C-alpha cells in the first residue's frame, strides 16, 4: 500500500529520548524532501514524568499533528497503557524491550538501549528507533544515511566513528523490524520542495520575525511555554544598541520595554497567561501614553498557574481587554509556525505604526512543535519605522484626534508621556472635553491597522467555518474532509483578530451561521464575533490538547444538521 502520510507517537518518560527520536525522524524526513511536523507535550517535572511527542511525515505540506497514529513507540509500560488506544486499526506498536515485555498482537519489542550500546555509541538509541520506523514504511536506507551524514559531519576528529555507529544503529533497528514481520506499506517518495526551507519551532519563528522587524530591546521573565524566546534573545540579541535581559518579574518586563519604547526602540517581551495578568497595568499605560511595544502571549492552559505544559486558546478576552478602563488591544494570532514569523514582523510594524501596545498570541502547541516552512524571503517582508517628530521645542505631542509624530528623548519636542488623562502637552487634566478627545484619539488610531489579509473559500455557502490561532491546521483539515464529502460549507481565517479586516467582518455578517472551533470553555472568539454582529457559534474543547480532525468533522455536521432543523422549524 502506498502511504502519503505517516504518523508516529513516541511516549515514555522525560529523558528517555522521546523528543529526540521524534525530532530526529522529522529531520531525517525533511532532509530528503518530505514535510514534517512534531507535536510535543512536556512532563511537568524536571526529571522523568510521562511525556509524549508525535511526528507526522507527509508528501505534502502539513496542517496538523494527525489523529491517526500509525505507530506507537512505547518506551515504558505506562506509555503503552496510556497510548495504545490511539493506534489506528492495522497500526503497529514498538515497545522498548529493554524496559518491559508484553503480548499485544500488534506489537514487537526493540531492545533500544542494548542495540545502541552494541554499536559502541550509547547515544544512538534514537537511531535504532528511526531505523525500525523506516523499515515499517520501506524508507530507503540511503535517505537515512544522508541524514546521519548531514547531522553528524561537523569536522571533528571522530566524525567517521560517530557516523558509522549511528548508521549501524539504524541498520540494527531496520533488521529487527524486518524480522518482526510487520509492514505498514510503502511511504510514497517525497516531492522535494523547489524552494529553500527552514526547520524550526514556533517560538524560534517569533524570535526571528521580531529580529527581522528590528526589535532591539527585550526584557522577559521565565515562564513556560515562552521561556525559549527569552533564552533565544539573550543569546542572539547582542551587539551595539541591542539589549536582552531577564528581569525580576513580568511587571518589570512590561515597564522596562515601555521605557525602551518611549526612548525610541522597538521593544518586546514574551510571556504566558500568568504574566499577561501581571502586565495588565503596564499595558494600560502603553495604551494611554501611546507607547509602541509588543507583548507575546504563548498561551497555556487554565487561569492562575493552570496547566503550564498543555495547550489552550483561553487568553483571548484577557489579551483583548487586559487592563481596566476603555482599552482594546490590537491582536495578531498566528495559526502556524510559518505565520509565527510573519505575525511577529507585523506585530512590531503595528506597534510602530499606531504607536501603542500590540499583543501577539501564540500557543504552547505551536511554540514547541518543529516544522519545515519555506524560508522567508526577507526582501519581500516590509519593516516599518515609527513616525518621529523632527521640529523644535514647544511641541504638542497629543494634539488632535489622529496619530501624531513621536519625539525622541534627547532631541527637541520634550513632553510627558502620561498615564493620567492628559492634555496635548501630556499634562494631567480632568476636563471632560479632553477625556473625550483623547479616548477618541486612542481608538481612532486602530483604523491604521485595518485592511489585512484573510483567507476565504467556498464563499457562497451560507454556513462557514472560522477558526483562529493554532486551531487553524486541524480545522482546515476538517474543512477539506467536509468539502470532499460534498458538504456545502465556507472557510474564513485571518491572524488579524483585532482590528478584524472590515471586509472579512462584512462577509461573516452575511452568513447564516459561522462555526468557530476553539480550545476554551466560553467560546471566546465566537463571543467576539457576536459583538461584531456575526451569527456565530463555538465548538469548544478544553482538554489541554489540540482538536482531532475526525471529531471536528462529526461536530461540524451535528451543528449544521441542528441549524437546518431550526431553520425548517
Amino acid at each position: 500500500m502506498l502511504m502519503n502520510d505517516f504518523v508516529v507517537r513516541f511516549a515514555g518518560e522525560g529523558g528517555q529520548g522521546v523528543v529526540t527520536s521524534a525530532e530526529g525522524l522529522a529531520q531525517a524526513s525533511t532532509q530528503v524532501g518530505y514535510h514534517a511536523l512534531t507535536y510535543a507535550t512536556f512532563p511537568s517535572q524536571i526529571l522523568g514524568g510521562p511525556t509524549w511527542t508525535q511526528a507526522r511525515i507527509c508528501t505534502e505540506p502539513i496542517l496538523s499533528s494527525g489523529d491517526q497514529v500509525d505507530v506507537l513507540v512505547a518506551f515504558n509500560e505506562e506509555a503503552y497503557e496510556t497510548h495504545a488506544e490511539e493506534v489506528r486499526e492495522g497500526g503497529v506498536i514498538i515497545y522498548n524491550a529493554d524496559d518491559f515485555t508484553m503480548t499485544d498482537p500488534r506489537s514487537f519489542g526493540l531492545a533500544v538501549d542494548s542495540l545502541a550500546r552494541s554499536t559502541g555509541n550509547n547515544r544512538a538509541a534514537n537511531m535504532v528507533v528511526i531505523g525500525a520506523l523506516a523499515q515499517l514504511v520501506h524508507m530507503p536506507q540511503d535517505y537515512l544515511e544522508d541524514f546521519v551524514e548531514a547531522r553528524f559531519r561537523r569536522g571533528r576528529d571522530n566524525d567517521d566513528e560517530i557516523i558509522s555507529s549511528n548508521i549501524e544503529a539504524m541498520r540494527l533497528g531496520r533488521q529487527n523490524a524486518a524480522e518482526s514481520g510487520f509492514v505498514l506499506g510503502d511511504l510514497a517518495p517525497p516531492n522535494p520542495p523547489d524552494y529553500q526551507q527552514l526547520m524550526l519551532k514556533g517560538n524560534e519563528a517569533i524570535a526571528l520575525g521580531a529580529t527581522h522587524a528590528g526589535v532591539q530591546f527585550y526584557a522577559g521573565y521565565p515562564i513556560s511555554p515562552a521561556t525559549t524566546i527569552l533564552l533565544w534573545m539573550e543569546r542572539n540579541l547582542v551587539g551595539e544598541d541591542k539589549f536582552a535581559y531577564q528581569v525580576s518579574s513580568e511587571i518589570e518586563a512590561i515597564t522596562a520595554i515601555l521605557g525602551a519604547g518611549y526612548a525610541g526602540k522597538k521593544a518586546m517581551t514574551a510571556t504566558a497567561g500568568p504574566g499577561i495578568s501581571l502586565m495588565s497595568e503596564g499595558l494600560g499605560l502603553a495604551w494611554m501614553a501611546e507607547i509602541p511595544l509588543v507583548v507575546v502571549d504563548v498561551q497555556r492552559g487554565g487561569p492562575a498557574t493552570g496547566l503550564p505544559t498543555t495547550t489552550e486558546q483561553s487568553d483571548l478576552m484577557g489579551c483583548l481587554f487586559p487592563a481596566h478602563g476603555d482599552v482594546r488591544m490590537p491582536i495578531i494570532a498566528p495559526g502556524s509556525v510559518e505565520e509565527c514569523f510573519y505575525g511577529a514582523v507585523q506585530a512590531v510594524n503595528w506597534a510602530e505604526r499606531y504607536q501603542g501596545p500590540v499583543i501577539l498570541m501564540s500557543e504552547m502547541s505551536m511554540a514547541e512543535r518543529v516544522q519545515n516552512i519555506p524560508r522567508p524571503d526577507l526582501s519581500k517582508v516590509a519593516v516599518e519605522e515609527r513616525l518621529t517628530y523632527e521640529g523644535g521645542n514647544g511641541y504638542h505631542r497629543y494634539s488632535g484626534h489622529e496619530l501624531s509624530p513621536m519625539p525622541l528623548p534627547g532631541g527637541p519636542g520634550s513632553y510627558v508621556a502620561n498615564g493620567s488623562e492628559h492634555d496635548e502637552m501630556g499634562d494631567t487634566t480632568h476636563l471632560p472635553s479632553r477625556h473625550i478627545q483623547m479616548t477618541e484619539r486612542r481608538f481612532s488610531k486602530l483604523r491604521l491597522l485595518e485592511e489585512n489579509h484573510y483567507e476565504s473559500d467556498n464563499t457562497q455557502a451560507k454556513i462557514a467555518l472560522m477558526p483562529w490561532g493554532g486551531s487553524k491546521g486541524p480545522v482546515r483539515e476538517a474543512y477539506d474532509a467536509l468539502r470532499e464529502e460534498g458538504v456545502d460549507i465556507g472557510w474564513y481565517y485571518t491572524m488579524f483578530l483585532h482590528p478584524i479586516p472590515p471586509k472579512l467582518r462584512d462577509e461573516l455578517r452575511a452568513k447564516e451561521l459561522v462555526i468557530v472551533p476553539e480550545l476554551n470553555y466560553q467560546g471566546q472568539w465566537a463571543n467576539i464575533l457576536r459583538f461584531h454582529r456575526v451569527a456565530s457559534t463555538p465548538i469548544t474543547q478544553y482538554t489541554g490538547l489540540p482538536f482531532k480532525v475526525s471529531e471536528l468533522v462529526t461536530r461540524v455536521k451535528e451543528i449544521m444538521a441542528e441549524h437546518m432543523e431550526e431553520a425548517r422549524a
Partner: protein
Amino acid sequence: MSKKNPEYDFKWCPGCGDFGVRRALEFAMINRLEETGLPIENNVVVAGIGCSGNLVHLLEGEQPYGIHGIHGRTLPVAMGVKMARPELNVIVVAGDGDFLSIGGEHIAPQAARNVNVTAVIMDNGVYGLTKGQSSPTTEMGAVTSSTPFGKVEEDLDPLELYLTLGVSFIASGFSGQPRVLARLINEGMNHDGMSMIHVQSPCVTYNDTFQLIKGNAKEGIAPALWDIPDDHDPSSKQAAYDLVQQGGLPVGVIYKDESRASLEGNMGSIRAKARERSIDQLMDAYAF
C-alpha cells in the same frame, strides 16, 4: 510645564516640601547642562504616582522629557529608558509610598544590576495624594487616617535598606535646602551606577515634620538635621552603617562605591563574549 497651563489641575499645598525638591532638580539639571553642554532634553524624569510625582509637570524653565506612569514602577521604567539609550540621563522622582511600599520589590534587583539612574525619593512619611494614610516610613504608633488606633508596623529605615540592598551611591538630604540638595543630586548623576538621594520633604497637610527637622529653639526642640562631617569615609560600608545608626536627618553623601561597574558597563563586557549575527545568519541555523 514651562509656563502656567490652565488645564493642569493639580496643585501642591502651600508650604509643601516638594516645592524645594523641584527647585533642587531644576538647579541640578541646569548644573548638568553647564557641566556637560547637553541640553535639558537629554534628561528623562520618570515620576511615580503621588503628590511627589507631579513634580514632572511642575518643573519650570526648559523642559526635560518625562514619563508619569503607574504607581510603584519608576525603577524598571527607568531601566528601560537607560538601557535603550544609555546616552540619556535618567532621573526617578517618587514618594515613599510609591518607592518603598508598592515599588519596594524593584529596589533590590535594580541595585544588584547597578543601573545607572538617579532616584530622588521624596519622603514625607505619609501617603499624601490619597489623603494621609500610613506609609512604610510613618513612625510606629502614629495615628493616621488608615491607622486610627496607631500604626502597628515597625517603621522602615530607608537609608539602612539601601545600604543592605547594595545601592552603590546613597545620599540623604532635606527639601528645605534646595542648593545643597541639588549638589547631592548632581553627585548622584555623575556616579556611574545606581544612585539614591533620599530626601525628607514634609507634607504640611498630613504629616508636618518641618519643626522636627529644623528644630525650634524657643520650644526646646533640637533639630533632627545634621551635616555629615567631612571626615566621614563614604567608601566604607561600615562607616555608612555607623552613620545611619546615629539617627536624625543626616545631610550629605552616606555611601559611594565606585569599584562596581554599572549595568551598561557589564553589558559592554559580556558583548565581547557573544557573537553578533545578521538575520540571514540567524536563519541559516535552521536551514537544511
